[in-house]
């Protein structure tokens, strides 16, 4: 009986869900994360590092990992004993210049073995900004329809106002739960 096995058991028992928040820098990951935590969003600087927070939602315990815009993201999802259940990919809808980058990174990420099976939620953030692309445009730009290996969904949102954040998460939790827990 070692730690690895303990964690596995706890995950089932406590209905734990592990969610990883990723995306290019300045996409708004930490803003969303803070919003989830009910924290003040006016003092945000580029994240150097990562934060884990546990939140209760609909009877599930969400362990949300906010990974900053580091170069070496890999260690975060590689390190852990558990697998990642959900992946929140945050996109800056107004940053058209980097959409191509964003697409490449996302598709590269989905190749990761440790992320296989994870549910993908794409937040098209900053939709309220002038000149922002629509969710459909982003869906096309990121080639989401090509993704066959993961369940995915794109949701437009505004981290600043909190609009649509809950809908996105709800979809994601339902999808994950149908895979990893028994729904009573």
């Amino acid at each position, binding site marked *: 009986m070692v730690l690895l096995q*303990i964690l596995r058991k706890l995950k089932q028992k406590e209905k734990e869900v592990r969610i990883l928040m990723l995306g290019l820098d300045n996409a708004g990951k930490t803003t969303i994360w803070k919003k989830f935590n009910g924290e003040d969003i006016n003092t945000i600087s580029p994240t150097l590092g990562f934060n884990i927070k546990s939140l209760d939602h609909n009877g599930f315990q969400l362990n949300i990992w906010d990974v900053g815009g580091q170069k070496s993201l890999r260690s975060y999802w590689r390190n852990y004993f558990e697998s990642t259940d959900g992946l929140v990919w945050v996109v800056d809808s107004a940053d058209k210049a980097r959409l191509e980058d964003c697409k490449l990174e996302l598709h590269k990420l989905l190749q990761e*073995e440790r992320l296989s099976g994870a549910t993908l939620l794409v937040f098209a953030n900053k939709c309220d900004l002038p000149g922002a692309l629509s969710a459909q445009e982003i869906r096309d730009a990121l080639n989401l329809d090509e993704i066959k290996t993961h369940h995915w969904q794109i949701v437009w949102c505004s981290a600043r106002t909190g609009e649509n954040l809950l809908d996105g998460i709800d979809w994601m939790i339902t999808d994950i739960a149908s895979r990893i827990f028994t729904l009573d």
Partner: protein
Amino acid sequence: MSKGSRQSLVELEEGEGTVGDEEFPLGLGCALDLFREKDEVVGILKSLPDIYVDKSAAETLYEKYQRILDRYQEQPHLLDKHIEEMIEILISQVRIGSSLKYLSLKFLRQIFKVRGPKEVVKRMPHEIADLVPVLIYLESENLDDPNTWESGYVLVMWLSILVINPFNLKLLDGQQEEDNQNRDSSIAARLMNVCKKCLVLNNNIGSAAPFLVAKFLTRPDMQQIYMSDFIDWTCKNIQEKTAFGIRVGSFASLSAIFKHAKRQEILHYSEKVLKAVISSEYEKCDTVLRKAGTKLVQRIGMVFLRTKIAPWRYQRGSRSLLMNLQGNKALSQKDVEKCDTQVNGDDESVNYQEVSQYSDSIEAILDKLLESLKDKDTIVRWSAAKGIGRVTNRLPKDYADEVVENLLQSFSPRESNGAWHGGCLALAELSRRGLLLPERLESVIPVINKAMVYDEIRGNFSVGSHVRDAACYVLWAFARAFEPKVVEPYVHDIATSLIVVMLFDREINCRRAASAAFQENVGRQGNFPHGIDIVTVADYFSIGNRQNAFTTISLDIGKFKVYTIPMIDHLIALKFNHFDGSVRELAAEALGKLGQFEPDYMLTEILPKLIPLCYDLDTFTSNGALYSVGQIILKLFKINKLELTEKTLDEIRGIAHKVIERKFRGSTKGNELIRQGLCFLIMCMARAKLPLHKDDEFLTITYKFLLENIPNVDRKTKTLATDCLRHYFLEFYFKNPSRQSSISGILEQFASQLKTASMPTRQGFAFALGNFPLEILRENFQLVMEALVSCASVQTQPNTLVWAESRREAVLAINNILSDGPFTLEDDWDKGIPVQLISHKLLYECLLVGMDDYTTDKRGDIGSWVREASMLCIETLTTKLTECSPANPDQFLDSTVVTKFMGLIAKQAVEKIDNLRVRAGKIFSNLLHHQNPIIEQVPQRSQIVQIFPAEFVASANWRSTSQTFPRFVELLKFEEYTYPILSGFVVSGGSLSDRVMKDANGAVKNYIHASGAMGDAEIIRISEILLQIFRDNLKVERVTLPLMKFVTQLLQSNVLSPLLTSHVPFGVKLIDLVKSEVVNTTRIEKIIAAIDLLCELIQGPPDVVKNSLRRLMVYLCHGYPRIRSITAQKLYESIITYADDTLDVLPENLEEVMSLLSETRWDQEISTLKPHRNRICDLLDVPKPNLLKPSSS
């Protein structure tokens, strides 16, 4: 059934949250997304009625079904949507009955296994009509039958859901037997009896039964009738030392009842049962009973204490996503107040009245649980830890604090490792539930830090990895449980503890556990110094490899000042003298590397501490200290920070003295460790250029010591001594004006050691010379080379014949020396090795002999080592010689020599040892394709290049005979290669390895077959060479035995038929050779090979047949009965096969020969057999053999 099967009870009873003992495979956990094979499975289930009569078909189908479902073992919930459908199909088939019933139930059991009984049993049909048939089955069947236990198991589970049907059982009685007044045969009574019957079984049915009992007895009606009796019965069982099965069953059913029953209904039995449990002395029984007892004790505890959540527990802030997102200030404010981070120490609001009411019992329960926490078995400790967590949850604050106080006492050096482990588990359990209050951290953290490095030596192994792993669990749990500000004061302690375990633990699971706990802490606490940088470099994979963790990752972390010194201190305290040698060496290396960050600390603190430990009496300490001191001074020297005081230098210098003074007695393991350590230290001293060049005393004793260890039989010691010597000579002799002059004398002494009469000495000194740098050898180059060549050659003294190891070592030494630099035509050592100093003729001669070294001893073909080394050396020598004079290729390379060695290398490439073939194949192709310049002397080079084109060579698998043999066989057509290649194939073709044999035979057959197209000339040439090989190797069994087998196979496949005509003398010559080979031998295997060969020759021309029959007639009356029988049998077979064409005998005579051969018992006395044999001779018109010597019978 084994007692062990009872353990599944654990899973069944605890269902959620229990951590059983089984190993989970490390999979992806969520790789599957839905039950894809659903249709297939349903198809299988539906087909059961058609196939169940065919047992083997049913078995195959079951295995297939099992394989599919087992895939879902990690994500069984994916099956949930379909379980009902599957159950429905199966149950309808169960209702049909007959043996289909057993099969369907067996299939059903698999679902229980994969999904877990709790989830499945809910979905079983609830119809009351099924109750009686199930009951009857359980009553009538033999449930102990190992073939049908699955059926019994499923039915017990099914019954457990049928009995909770709120249906008056008496009505069923009415249906059954209208006027039966007898209570004992009522359905209820029968159910009770079945429960008891199942309970005592020592199999999975027994482990399912408590569940049934609990469901049945907690029915309000049944409870009134049976509960009291049943509890009396079980209490009696557990107190009396009844049979194992009954006791376990009783414990388990009591636990189940205490879990399922309502508190008020069971409370009045509690004290009674507790008394029974305590007097049962379960703690002295075996594991399963101790586990069962521990479980029951905590269940009783939970009944005494009312369900409530400790109001005083510690909670971390508001965490609802919904509330946070809605941002409803008022609501969230209120909520935060409600469950804010502080402790609501307000106990009065909750009524703890029952605690005082039952205080004695509760105390007894806690005592028992705390005691079980120290149990020697993990599962018992786990159960106790969870029990403590649950019970404490219902206790008032003071009481709970006492539990913690008590727990902390398990962490004393007097307690067993089990107690430490159990203590950690309980602490983690409490902190997960918020029952460990922040003010307790002050006393808990130091204890956990001790547990993090717990390691108890037991001879040459240690226990404690489970304690360290559990301690990581505690720190992981702390990360989740506490607010950063609570943990703040301990961050440094926790971080350091985790880092040293994650880097320097011997066990991979501990390193990984520590890394996971560290990451959790970094992510949740956010205040770990350099946390993110560390998490980035030290992940699950990078620390998985111990060496990487110790020597690479440790540097990435060690560069952070806060951690450097604690890491060094940890290595000094616990790792440099670790019981595992590889850990000691890694620790020393890590110490050296980390020392670079703290040179002053190493010089002023660590070295003075380590130096006296170098001559400690404990071997591990001494060995580790020697390594560590060496590493530290070497690494400090490299960064130019080795500023030793006069005193320290003197102390280091004195180490060798003191260690050597202690005298090594014999060559025990401990002694070897000290020798190795000292060699290593002296090497580091040389490489660190310690100013000891004028210290004659030091140089004398160390020189003597190193020399002593060169012939050491321990390979590691020898290698270390040799490595050391290399640096030692370079520094203290070669670069030392006062000693430079003595090098020649020393090398002469070394060279003379190559002639001694001790194999290890020769081996050792050859190895040492081979490792010397050229600059030292220069002046005495020829002397050394000659000595090595003579050591590499087979010498006249008979006892040296089998010294293949020293010959190999000498050849490798030559190879090493020659590889050390290019050859040069000039007499200038700065440009390389002057080629005129290399007596290449002599060398080639020696190496060609080495290529033919087939020495064997009890280990087998030890000559292969010499052959391999010789090949390597030939490659080096040849390429260097060609490269040094590109303008005049023939200057040093003689084409006859090249022809010889190319042939011999090719031969090795088709022989039977895999590794040698690989090596030979590579060397052969390297020489063939050598560029700048091309080696023109390779015979038939341009044609062979076509057989082995560069594209093939680039991707060839030289191990695979099917790839290489068909190519090498093509070399047969070049005269230069025919003999060696054929000798190689002969040995492989008759070898024991099936694959090699087949490929060799196939290749040669194909070759001969193909060559037939151009007439018989080629096959006759080959056959002459084959005979030549036979002749050259007469009585060399290594060659002749496989050769005879090989020829037999060729004859059988008819490819040699052109040779079996009267104008080719092949057959007759072959028989002569066979005769000379086998005469006077006692090796049965060889005689049999000869008989096989002779029998095959019966297909030949008349003179060959005659000759062969004459030989066979001799064997028909051979001294060994087995030979006689085999001869008769083989002869019979070949006459049947070939006689029609080749034997000129009357049919009736042949008839008689055949019956004589087949009907005589050829293992009788020779005198009885002789007349039969002679009759056969007459019939076949073969002269009777004359007896030259008396028969051996």
